């Protein structure tokens, strides 16, 4: 088997090949590292590649397998990790200058579980700074490019993880989703991404953006792979006080059964139609028809408060972020910048100079907004009101789930847009997450699966499924059923239709240090 065959296999297939002894983890890891060397100059999915560490981990798995040790099912399948999760001994920058060169002294629980499952870590993936953005254009280290069109965004904030998986630079990857940062990149790159139930995956070692919204999850090319990875990283963790103690729902079994017969799927009126690109809506409608054909029943639900979700989110998130990011104070770790011509500057002055030099525009924007929303005299009108709308949104979800087993919508309102299109219009950028944000506010799980290519531009579209808390298995049942029907219709995976990245001309500014 050639290395170009290997990298196009699903993680589940690779796990089987490893178990059968048909391939070694070293071969697999080398194949992916070769691919990174061949294409990442164009894509820029990785901020840091750890060839040495990945090969050492692969050799260890191979040695243990050869010794007859009983190993976890996916042991030896390499993985990429978003640069917002701490990795002991490996740089963790969160896409920010303020953490340039920071090497954490500990592993996030998610990372520890990957290591315990024997997954070699290929490297850390690019992202919008501190996960604030929908395009990776806010990374301090330059944007990631969409494998379908190098002039377009790969989504964000986890554009690096989605593009790595979509350009076969990793079989699967870890992302994090605060308002859509796993699902929206999945939609615009033709890949799969799951945001698990809040509390379903540990946040220990996840550098917090908004603690009540953040959740790590899988980025993959198939629904089954997402379920397999979900099972590896999920479950209770005493190191996270918001971690749910109940056992994970049977996600892998649901993905394998792919059964939607008798399931009631609810179309959210507020998340379709107006504001959604024609081709996105068309592929969504076709996907619904597939699910009906597979035995599901369609109901329409209305959640009127969802029209306030974006405003609610952009008060709650900046408020929490302004508090969480206060720890970047230039005292214990990270960058320290002295104000110019002030060798006797105070700690406060050094902190302010450091944060000016170390944070990018979007981070500053949101910290200032959050500081305002939390300030005395404005708290009730802004943060207080947002918390009340958050309750309304959660209540409307609860009511909708009495009529439907899952809710569905397009994942993102448009296909991938061009770099720079929305960079100077923050509100236009924020609208990308209009359909994904409600689930984060309510703590519910969601998945995005590819629904095809928009006829007008030939770019991927995403189909979103949302479920009640701790009913993550339903996401996989619906996702896998849709995936199977679409695969039968297309006769090949969607990504087979993506251009050969190595044949594309090098984009004008695709080098790693071109951002600023």
């Amino acid at each position, binding site marked *: 088997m050639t290395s170009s065959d290997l990298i196009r296999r699903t993680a589940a297939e690779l796990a089987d090949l490893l178990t059968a002894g048909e391939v070694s983890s070293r071969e697999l890891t080398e194949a992916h590292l070769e691919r990174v060397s061949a294409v990442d100059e164009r894509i820029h999915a990785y901020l840091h590649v750890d060839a040495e560490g990945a090969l050492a981990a692969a050799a260890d798995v191979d040695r243990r397998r050869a010794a007859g040790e009983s190993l976890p099912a996916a042991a030896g399948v390499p993985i990429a990790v978003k640069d917002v999760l701490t990795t002991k001994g490996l740089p963790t920058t969160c896409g920010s200058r303020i953490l340039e060169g920071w090497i954490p*002294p500990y592993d996030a629980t998610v990372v520890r579980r990957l290591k315990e499952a024997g997954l070699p870590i290929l490297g850390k993936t690019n992202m919008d700074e501190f996960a604030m953005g929908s395009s990776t254009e806010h990374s301090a280290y330059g944007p990631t490019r969409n494998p379908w069109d190098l002039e377009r965004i790969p989504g964000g904030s986890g554009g690096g993880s989605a593009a790595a998986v979509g350009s076969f630079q990793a079989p699967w990857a870890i992302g994090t989703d605060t308002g859509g940062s796993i699902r929206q990149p999945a939609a615009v790159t033709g890949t799969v991404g799951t945001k698990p139930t809040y*509390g379903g995956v540990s946040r220990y070692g996840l550098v917090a953006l908004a603690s009540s919204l953040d959740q790590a999850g899988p980025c993959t090319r198939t629904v089954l792979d997402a379920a397999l990875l979900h099972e590896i990283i999920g479950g209770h963790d005493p190191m996270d006080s918001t971690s749910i103690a109940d056992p994970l729902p049977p996600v892998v079994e649901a993905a394998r059964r792919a059964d939607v017969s008798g399931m009631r799927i609810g179309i959210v009126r507020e998340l379709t139609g107006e504001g959604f690109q024609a081709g996105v809506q068309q592929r969504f409608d076709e996907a619904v028809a597939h699910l009906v054909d597979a035995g599901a029943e369609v109901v329409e639900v209305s959640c009127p408060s969802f029209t306030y979700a974006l405003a609610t989110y952009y008060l709650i998130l900046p408020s929490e972020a302004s508090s969480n990011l206060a720890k970047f104070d230039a005292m214990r770790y990270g960058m*320290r910048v002295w104000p110019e011509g002030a060798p006797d500057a105070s700690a406060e002055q050094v902190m302010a100079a450091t944060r000016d030099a170390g944070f990018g525009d979007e981070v500053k924007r949101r910290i200032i*907004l959050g500081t*305002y929303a939390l300030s005395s005299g404005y708290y009730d009108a802004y943060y207080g*009101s947002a918390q009340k*709308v958050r*309750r309304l949104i*959660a209540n409307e979800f609860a009511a909708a789930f009495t009529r439907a087993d899952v809710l569905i919508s397009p994942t993102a309102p448009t296909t991938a847009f061009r770099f720079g299109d929305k960079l100077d219009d923050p509100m236009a950028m924020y609208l990308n997450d209009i359909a994904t944000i409600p689930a984060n506010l309510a703590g519910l799980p969601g998945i995005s699966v590819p629904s095809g290519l928009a006829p007008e531009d030939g770019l991927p579209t995403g189909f979103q499924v949302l479920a009640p808390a701790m009913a993550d298995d339903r996401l996989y049942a619906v996702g896998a059923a849709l995936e199977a029907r679409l695969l039968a219709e297309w006769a090949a995976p969607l990504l087979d239709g993506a251009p050969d990245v190595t044949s594309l001309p090098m984009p004008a500014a695709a080098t790693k240090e071109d951002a600023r």
Partner: protein
Amino acid sequence: MSDPTRDSLTRDDVAHLASLARIDLSEAELDHLAGELAVILESVATVSSAPIEDVEPMSHPMPLVNVTRPDEVRPSLSPDQALAMAPDAEEQRFSVPRILAED
């Protein structure tokens, strides 16, 4: 800044907020941000027009309960590990700029 739902942020307001947030913004950044934040604020202020009278605020997706663990010693970072990434360290401590004024 009397009616938070209607008036917008001035450049001076942004400068004050930046000092509260300990970010030393340049003059150009202040000009730019004041305009952008006004647009964003106008949009997010719509939350106060939602039907939220008598609605209980929600801070978190699930009820928060305090979590405790047995009071047992467990491994933690060594001083060297904790200080390894410090901008400056001295005598097994973080070395920081002066906290108080000279006078």
